[in-house]
C-alpha cells in the first residue's frame, strides 16, 4: 500500500514537472507547477516529515505559486511562439544532461545488495515538536537571521516595485 502511494505521487510529480517545462502556455505551466508542489508535499508526508509537508503547502503552494499567478495575470501574455534560438546550445544541453543521467544510472547500479532498510531509525524525526526543539536550541541564530532576510526581501521587493521612487 505504501509503495502504491509512493509510485502514484512520484509519477504525478514527474509528469507535472515535465509538463511545466514543455508547456507553451505559461498559465498552464504555472498550474502544473502547483500540482508538482502538492505532490512533493505528499512525498514529504510519506517520509513522515510532517512539518516540512505542511510548510511546503503553506509557503510554496500557498504563497509563492499564488505570487506567480498574480504577476502572470498582471501581464497580458499570449502563447509563446516558437523559439528561434540556435540548435547548438540545445544539443549541448541534451548531451550534458544525458551524461549526467548515465552517471546517475551507474551510481545506482553500483549499490551493493546488502543495504537493508534501517531498523532502529528514530521515526519521529520529522515531527514538529522534535524539529522545533532542534530549531530553537541549536539553530536559533540562523532563525533570527532568516527573519532579517525576510525583512530585507520585503523592503527590497516594495522598493523595486514602486512606480515613483
Amino acid at each position, binding site marked *: 500500500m505504501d509503495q502504491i502511494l509512493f509510485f502514484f505521487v512520484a509519477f504525478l510529480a514527474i509528469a507535472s514537472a515535465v509538463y511545466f517545462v514543455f508547456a507553451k502556455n*505559461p498559465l498552464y505551466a*504555472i498550474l502544473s*507547477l502547483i500540482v508538482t508542489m502538492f505532490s*512533493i508535499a505528499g512525498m514529504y508526508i510519506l*517520509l513522515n516529515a510532517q512539518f516540512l509537508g505542511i510548510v511546503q503547502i503553506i509557503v510554496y503552494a500557498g504563497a509563492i505559486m499564488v505570487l506567480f499567478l498574480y504577476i502572470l495575470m498582471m501581464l497580458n501574455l499570449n502563447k509563446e511562439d516558437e523559439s528561434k534560438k540556435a540548435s547548438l546550445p540545445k544539443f549541448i544541453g541534451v548531451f550534458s544532461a544525458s551524461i549526467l543521467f548515465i552517471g546517475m544510472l551507474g551510481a545506482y547500479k553500483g549499490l551493493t545488495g546488502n543495504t537493508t532498510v534501517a531498523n532502529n*531509525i528514530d521515526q519521529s*524525526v520529522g515531527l514538529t515538536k522534535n524539529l522545533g526543539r532542534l*530549531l530553537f536550541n541549536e539553530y536559533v541564530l540562523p532563525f533570527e537571521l532568516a527573519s532579517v532576510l525576510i525583512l530585507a526581501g520585503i523592503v527590497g*521587493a516594495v522598493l523595486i516595485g514602486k512606480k515613483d521612487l
Partner: protein
Amino acid sequence: MRKNAIVILGCVELMLNSVNLLLAAFSAYKGDGHGQLLVFFIMVVAAAEVAVGLAIIAMMYRNTRSVDVSIFNKLRG
C-alpha cells in the same frame, strides 16, 4: 529554451524543490533532524528570492511591455 522570464524563475523553484526533497529523504533515512531544518531554511530563502525576482520582472514589464529574456541583452558584449 524557454523565453518567458516567469517560467525561468519557476524552473529555479523546481530545482530548489528537488534539492529539498533529496535533503528530506536522506534526513529521514539517517534519523537526523538537521537535514529537514536545512530544508526549512532553503524554503525561507526561496520565498524571499521569488518575491524580489517577481518585483524585478514586474519592473521589466513596466518598462518594455515584454518578459521575453532574449531582448534583454544590452549587457552582452
